[in-house]
């Protein structure tokens, strides 16, 4: 399985990564090598092996439904680039 430059560009875009055009072939080569490794693993017969969702063989712990957090808006917003009326301001996003 090998990736083309268009696919590299698409993956970079989905991850919102900016890559230089001249670096694209390197990424294509490296990512393809990873996919080849995955393809090798895919070739192993896993009949009867349950899929693993997590390397730790244990279950999720849960908490009781209680409000334990207090309002710390000022502390959080102290590091925000821009705020107004309690809101975080971000570059305009339009549906």
């Amino acid at each position, binding site marked *: 399985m090998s990736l083309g430059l268009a696919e590299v560009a698409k993956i970079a875009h989905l991850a919102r990564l900016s890559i230089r055009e001249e670096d694209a072939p390197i990424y294509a080569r490296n990512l393809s090598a990873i996919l080849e490794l995955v393809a090798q693993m895919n070739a192993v017969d896993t009949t009867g092996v349950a899929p693993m969702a997590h390397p730790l063989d244990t279950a999720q*712990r849960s908490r009781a439904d209680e409000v334990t957090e207090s309002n710390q808006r000022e502390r959080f917003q102290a590091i925000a680039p821009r705020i107004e009326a309690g809101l975080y301001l*971000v570059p305009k996003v339009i549906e």
Partner: protein
Amino acid sequence: MEWETVIGLEIHAQLATKSKIFSGAAIAYGAEPNTQACAIDLGMPGVLPVLNREAARMAVMLGLSIGAEIARRSVFARKNYFYPDLPKGYQISQYELPIVQKGQLTIDLEDGTRKVIGVTRAHLEEDAGKSLHEDFHGQSGIDLNRAGTPLLEIVSEPEMRSAKEAVAYMKKLHQMVVYLGICDGNMQEGSFRCDANVSVRRKGDPQFGTRAEIKNLNSFRFVERAIEFEIERQIDRIESGGKVVQETRLYDPDKGETRSMRSKEEANDYRYFPDPDLLPLVLDEDFINAARADLPELPDIKKQRFMTQYGLSAYDAGVLTASRELGDYYEAVVAALGGEPKLCANWVTGDFAAFLNKDNRDIADSPVSTAQLAGLLRRIQDRTISGKIAKDVFEALWAGEGDADAIIEKHGLRQITDTSAIEKVIDEVIAANPDQLAQYRAGKDKLFAFFVGQVMKVSKGKANPQQVNDLLMEKLKD
């Protein structure tokens, strides 16, 4: 050409927990922006989500209520996309192994038939924040209070064939989650919202047509109108030689139409993978049995019971079991009165419901208690007042004038059942209307109603109507 519509619904029900699904922040509606968004909700580095057990219990309750399979082991996954109201860059959801699978919901159709709709799955996920696009100097404002609110996304099979069926399914599911107490069902506040997948195909065609997804429908009326519009649009397009494209559309309630959302540069590619921050959710039998023990009597079962136990019609039983509160109110009235379930049903679905509606009140805020209504009905039952006078007494009860007995005494509404007293009124009326009497005796039977009216008028509506009828019949015969 005959067309068939295919509709599947994805419904997001906000779970009625106190805290968020993966953090201890509150989820009260209407709080000041960002005052209920903690470090976990903001996606700060180094934080870890911990599952709210109550959200899982609520999901299991829904699953048990729709006869679904409860996954003993389910997995949380990351759904990756970028949007400013999603601070982590991914939404924690469930993908391959959801907590609930393969349930079903029976809907009642207008023609009286029933139809079973398959529920493919229901999975737990977190809600995103809200983006406010009002102008903040050319920027958007972000409120993350809603980020991390627990949602149950309930996905149906594409088994509905009309907008009406879709609405019936949505209403049934709404009734169910509210009955279970797992969702407040408030659609204006977005606690229960719906995306509809709609396609059309030629009747008999085994293949589905290309579907469009209509987003964020937050009322039953909008769901019906949006789907109706979309069906017409797709049929028009195909019949005029065009093709339906797979896309996301928004419903505009003002114009009554759906329109394409800005087409995304690429198809949704969420790159789901198991969230390494969360281990598989394992539910044991004790947990599931405890959730089962918490289930209330479900709407369909309650309706059947009302029909057999109280001898009510399917219609009355359906109205009275529309909500748990109304059913409880009704049963409390019957218990307080010690019988007469039909009389109680007439009053609870009639005047009581009408007054609630008129004042736009919930049952919890009713000014008339179940004991007070039973007190009024008791006086109809023992013929102290007529059904007609009872309506006036009810109005006074509603206005807070005290119990029925006090109102009856205060306004002198006690029914006249003393035969000689009624006869006296009848004699007066007959004496005062000799012309009508002559005409009646000459065969103009319709005038009987005139005499009844006069007697009721003179007695200020207090004469017992049955006795008035019987006595008048005798007197007018002479």
